[in-house]
């Protein structure tokens, strides 16, 4: 097993971007659903 700390550090911004990306998509969908639920009762 080769501990690769550099690769670990390289993945941290990716992890942050990944979680932010999922959050952004879900936030957009959430806002649109809220609007639709109000508009099409």
């Amino acid at each position, binding site marked *: *097993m*080769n*501990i*690769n*700390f550099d*690769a*670990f550090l*390289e*993945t*941290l911004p*990716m*992890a942050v*971007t*990944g*979680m932010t*990306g*999922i*959050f*952004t*998509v*879900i936030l*957009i*969908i*959430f806002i*649109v*659903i*809220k609007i*639709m*639920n109000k508009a*099409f*009762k």
Partner: protein
Amino acid sequence: MLEIFENFQNITIPQIIMWAIGGVLIYLAIKKDMEPTLLLPLGFGAILVNLPLSGAITQIHNGVEEVGAIDILFNAGIANELFPLLLFIGIGAMIDFEPLLTNPKLMFFGVFAQFGIFFTLSLAALLGFDLKDAASIAIIGAADGPTSIFVANYFNSKYVGAIIVAAYSYMALVPIIQPPVIKLITTQKERKIRMEYKQNSVSKLTKIMFPIIVTIAAGIVAPRSVALIGFLMFGNLIRECGVLNMLSQTAQKELANLITILLGISVASKMRADMFLTTETLMILALGLVAFIFDTVGGVCFAKIINLFAKKKVNPMIGAAGISAFPMSSRVVHKMGLAEDPSNFLLMHAAGANVSGQIASVIAGGLIIALIG
């Protein structure tokens, strides 16, 4: 006469171990009802490809290459990601997003229950896995078989077999993995929190627009996820449009069943002893478990953070249902709620978080491909 027994001397110990592993997978599928639709074909396939000079896989006989049927299937349906995508049409047609549309706040639990994917990505990279292999391993945390196959195959990971075995095994083991983790990080008082459920009606137009909006939103932010999310949402649109009931039934039954049969046995082409019996396989199984544990931790911790600010408290166990393993995870949370308080029904909230996890895990798959591919 001796020619009949000639192949016996080609049997190797690793091949016998793989027969045993195949047998265990078949046993778990039949006796323990653990994801039988995939583990049974996978287990049988593991035996099939590990027979000496197996004609099911590509072999070279007297200098001539004879292409095996399983390799043909793998190249026709998995190497080009076709089977997982077609299966997504069936899955999309099976999912009812109404619990989520009724209470869209539940969507955010699906986001934070993907934490295990990114935690495992970093951990696998730290342990020395190449970045593409680390991403393929991390996606086990999506708790979503087709997404795991899609991503691992996209990165052409040599660990596809181990990744699929881990992904489907842990999905089946959700009722064993999640409860101790949830109990460890929640108090009894938190597990007893009641959540009011209002049965709001959702218009048909909203149900029809939902898959289209999800596809557009995911497509703009994470374009590499379009194939995955698009096929999932296409299946859902067929279900909800109301004019394609026959197609919806076909997608849910015949299409999903046919693809599942072929998927399991095709993936087995990556379960040859020389590829599968490695220390990396054991590490992948361990990392997959870590991914599932930290998915659960991510979802529960998010719910606990919400509770610091919200007037109406959320039962933090709902956060654990934000993984994609549907409906196992929501059932687990519901049962745990009932165990603490027999009159506390969390199923509808948990189901909403659970279907949100299905969308979020697919988006996570697309983002992983975009970030590392």
